[in-house]
């Protein structure tokens, strides 16, 4: 699923400028770097509370399409530029992890229906 559509449907704000965005097929949520690293793939959106430089590092290493941060956390300029450099889209959801994942799940499942 297109990240911009996904962001709109789950009510999240995208902080990175539009450009070549990869599509999302899976979602993985967690607050441990090792777990995120293990689950990350080129089609996995990572949902996490961890808004730090290392998160962007693993996002770049694993070439994930995007990161979705939670609870409307403020995003610094520095982080945005880091993400832009890596080609990672940064979303911020107003909701917590549970609600956000639920919404994303709904989107991805209905998207899957359309494919059929």
């Amino acid at each position, binding site marked *: 699923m297109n990240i911009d559509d996904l962001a709109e449907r789950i009510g999240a704000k995208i902080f990175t400028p539009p450009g070549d965005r990869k599509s999302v*097929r*899976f979602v993985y949520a967690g*607050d*441990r*770097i*090792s*777990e*995120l*690293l*293990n689950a990350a*793939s*080129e*089609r996995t959106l990572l949902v*996490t509370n*961890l808004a*730090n*430089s*290392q*998160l962007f*590092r*693993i996002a*770049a*290493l*694993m070439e994930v399409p995007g990161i979705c941060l939670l609870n409307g956390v403020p995003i610094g300029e520095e982080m945005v530029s880091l993400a832009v450099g890596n080609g990672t889209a940064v979303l911020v959801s107003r909701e917590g992890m549970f609600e956000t994942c639920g919404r994303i799940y709904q989107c991805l499942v209905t998207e899957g229906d359309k*494919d*059929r």
Partner: protein
Amino acid sequence: MIRESYTIAGGNYRNAGLASSLLKTRLKKIGVDPAVLRRVMIAAYEAEMNVVIHADRGTMDVTFGDSYLDMEIRDEGPGISDITQAMKEGYSTAPEAAREMGFGAGMGLPNIRKNSDFFRIESSVGKGTYIRATIRLNTHKGTAGHGNSLVVREGVCSGCLACVRACPMGAIRVHEKRPEILRHRCVDCTTCMGVCESGAITLKSRSFFPVKAERGVLLVPTELLAQFGAAHPPQYVFRVLEKSGFSDVFTTAGCEVALRRAVAERSVHKEVKKPVISPVCPAVVNLIETRFPSLISLLAPYLSPLEALISRTSARPLLCVAACPSQFTLFRSMYDECEAIVVSPSETCAVMREQELRPVEIGHLHAENGCLEEKDSFLESSQKSLIVSGMNEVVDILERTENGLVEDVEILETYACSYGCAGSPLYRENPALAGHRADRFSMGNAQPKVAVKRGEPYRAREGMRLHPNLAEAIVLLSKIDTVMGSLPGKDCGMCGAPDCAALAEDIVLGRAAESDCVQPREKGDEGQ
């Protein structure tokens, strides 16, 4: 061979991961397979973060071999007092600052081990830690990077070494109750699973059986239907599956019959070299591609029944029951996981049992076993072929075939599991019984299909070769001979390798150390 060295600064979280990033850029330029790159990155990043979190400084030395990548990470840090503990998932000594950033999940070392083909850790308290992780750059050429589907469950192995001795490919090593599968040798047969009593070796099944599988198409091997006892014959189980929410249920029966017929037709032609080997079992095809490349020309160029069934089914979502690791691997190589779900038979059986199976009258079903024409051709083609099952038997017959000793055989139908597919260790029912039931079901119910020709030709795998370059391989071989001479030659297997020759090869290729040998040496410095 190229070597590169990266320095890692301890405690610097800002620049942490830089070494891994630089390495990634290099690997991308070389054009490393994405699946391999992923494994390298996980291992490299975790190793690098270990240095950043725990040590003052460290280095990452990377050696690019022709077919492998070797990472050595050394640090000047506090060292690890209990390595066994540190290797356990969930155990961490990371400081609070690191935990706040999301580290300290206790997954670092286990992650490195999981993602490398060879892993070694040494540590001395107060001095530092040394980690070596080797990752093969192109594992199975034949399966296009999909590797195989056997995995090791952590902390389950009892260290009995039964798998090491049983593996017909010499693909298993067990060090300190940690089985390691040498992916380049493994052909996805079920021998190790069959002999493992602790259940440490299992199928890489991450999926689950979707109970609410509306509109999905289910593909099942015929033998699965024969797992529910005399009171629930395959015909009945098939009907239960049809009613449990799938839009359609197909069995491999029709494709099995079609393949038999196609192979039989091929064997009639005089110009076709005999025996024609039926590609019915993907594990045997893997075996031939790896260990008997000279027999590749004998393989009939058709898809295995499950492959054929998958290629014929266009409906989605597609659910497929894989009865063994080789089927599982095949399925993963044919479809992206997002398009299909693969389930293991035991899970399916569990779901089936929940469906309240009612006993049916057996006599009623016997009447359905008609369709005499099919039955005849089925029997005829099976009489023409030599059916060999069980890896040891198959290896033996293939060796004889290679030596030209079975030219009187027209068709060779080989199965990696004893008693054919019904003998997969993933099934519970007695294999002879299940096979019998499944055959009878196929005779009566197989809808005639046409065998599907393979798109891709069979190709020899590089797995067993020491080195792609012949000259290099010869040098390695002479080194192995030298090492072999220094080993006791008792083939005790206590080092975790199947025999002394395998250990010698492991030592030369850097997978093991000479100190792994537990036998007292006859020759050597200490005795003189």
